[in-house]
């Protein structure tokens, strides 16, 4: 089966500053892959390129064999690191919005997740805390039956108690043949759900490995290896 995501010699520069340099990457289907690296390593740039929020300076990026386009946006579910919801909307409005544009959006799944978190469909986003808005956004993203989920720092803005809920939401709501691409620097929190990891440093991939390989062959946790590799 062809990979869900392929990057060939992918580079991105902002003026003189190189954010990503010559990235070669292939993501298999049905895996949970962690994109790990310190702040400013290029994680968000890579995720923005996948979602066509940026255009590569050089190289090629293919999603399900196609370059980023309307067709790929239909199969990629993206959670950005910031809140993009309109404050004047209530939860039902935003669910209708997602259902209108994404054919793979599952309303009943969204309402189930909302009720388990005690969020009322009539609640206005204006009245919600930042953490609750982030949960709503995660629910919207995970209510799609997408082929590739790109989650940029999904747990960075919420308290540790909510992190467990978010991670279990992620695991319980993606199809087996779908791929989860999670960017984070909070390794210990996500380590247990990852199949593979990619270490990114100064815009370059320094390691691509399965979590089992790190644990059994190197005898380290991913968090331990990360601290070793990225020691300041």
């Amino acid at each position: 089966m062809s990979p869900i995501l392929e990057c060939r010699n992918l580079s991105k520069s902002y003026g003189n500053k190189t954010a990503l340099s010559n990235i070669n990457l292939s993501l298999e289907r049905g895996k949970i892959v962690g994109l790990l690296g310190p702040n400013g390593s290029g994680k968000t740039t890579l995720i923005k390129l996948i979602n066509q929020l940026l255009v590569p300076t050089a190289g090629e990026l293919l999603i399900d064999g196609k370059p980023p386009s309307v067709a790929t946006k239909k199969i990629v579910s993206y959670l950005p690191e910031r809140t993009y919801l309109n404050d004047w909307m209530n939860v039902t409005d935003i669910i209708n919005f997602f259902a209108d544009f994404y054919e793979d959006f599952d309303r009943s799944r969204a309402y189930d997740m909302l009720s388990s978190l005690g969020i009322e469909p009539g609640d206005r986003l204006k009245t919600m805390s930042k953490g609750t808005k982030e949960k709503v956004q995660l629910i919207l993203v995970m209510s799609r039956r997408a082929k590739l989920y790109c989650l940029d720092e999904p747990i960075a803005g919420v308290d540790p108690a909510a992190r467990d809920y978010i991670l279990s939401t992620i695991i319980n709501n993606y199809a087996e043949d779908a791929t989860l691409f999670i960017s984070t620097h909070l390794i210990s929190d996500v380590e247990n759900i990852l199949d593979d990891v990619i270490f990114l440093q100064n815009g370059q991939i320094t390691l691509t490995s399965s979590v089992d390989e790190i644990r059994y062959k190197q005898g380290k946790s991913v968090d331990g290896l990360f601290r070793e590799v990225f020691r300041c």
Partner: protein
Amino acid sequence: MLAKLFKHEWKAVSILLLLIHGALLVFSFPGRIIISMASSNTGDYVDIIFAFYILFYVLGIVLVAFMTYLYLARRFMSNLFSDEGYLMHTLPVTPAQHLWSKFFVFVIWMIIDLIVIGLSLIILFLNKETLSELQSFMVNLWDAFITSFNSSPVGNVFYWMLSCIVSVFYSIFSIYFSICIGSLCKTHKVLGSLGTFIGIGIVTSIISSILMMIFQYTTTVTSGLSTAVTTQVMGDAYYLVTLVFNLLLALGFYFGSHYILSKKLNLQ
């Protein structure tokens, strides 16, 4: 997808715009009473109220029209270039669909704006006397309209209709293009947009002045009974060149905006 974008765009902007246009209409009703009071009995007290009312009314009309433009321009900016852009640009829609959905909503609100201002003026001023004056004004306006273009009345109507459509395209896409250019700035994006918009205004007025100088010619016309007057008039070619010039600029603004949205998106 265009229809869906239009629906959500309409819903997002219309609450506030309906409110301010509704407020203008409501504000017109007491004006009719004040005007009838002022015309039937004169006195310091009524005159002062009348003067203040007219002052606020004119300010209100200017404010409503200005706010409509400003609000829709701001909506374009915040929806596509702020945090909301992270959602809008990851929807399975094309940059062209984004532009056209916002454009159609803008056009409809420009028309509603004109209708509401017209209705408000009717509420304020329309009675038997003003109706007959309005009729003669419309006749004069029509005469001026069909004779302004030198060749034929049919050509005139066609020209003005085309000119109207082009100017709507030109004005809206010049706003969108300015905002797109502003979005490319690293900081001070609003200032960048405003600077571009003003810059476009200055450059186009210089070019129009040059065109006027090229196509202007002197002629002698007879006005009134027998007075011959030498005057500067514009040839038909001037109107056609201006129309084509504005059309080319409008197309340039559209394709420029489209290029920036698809190839140079720079969300912070």
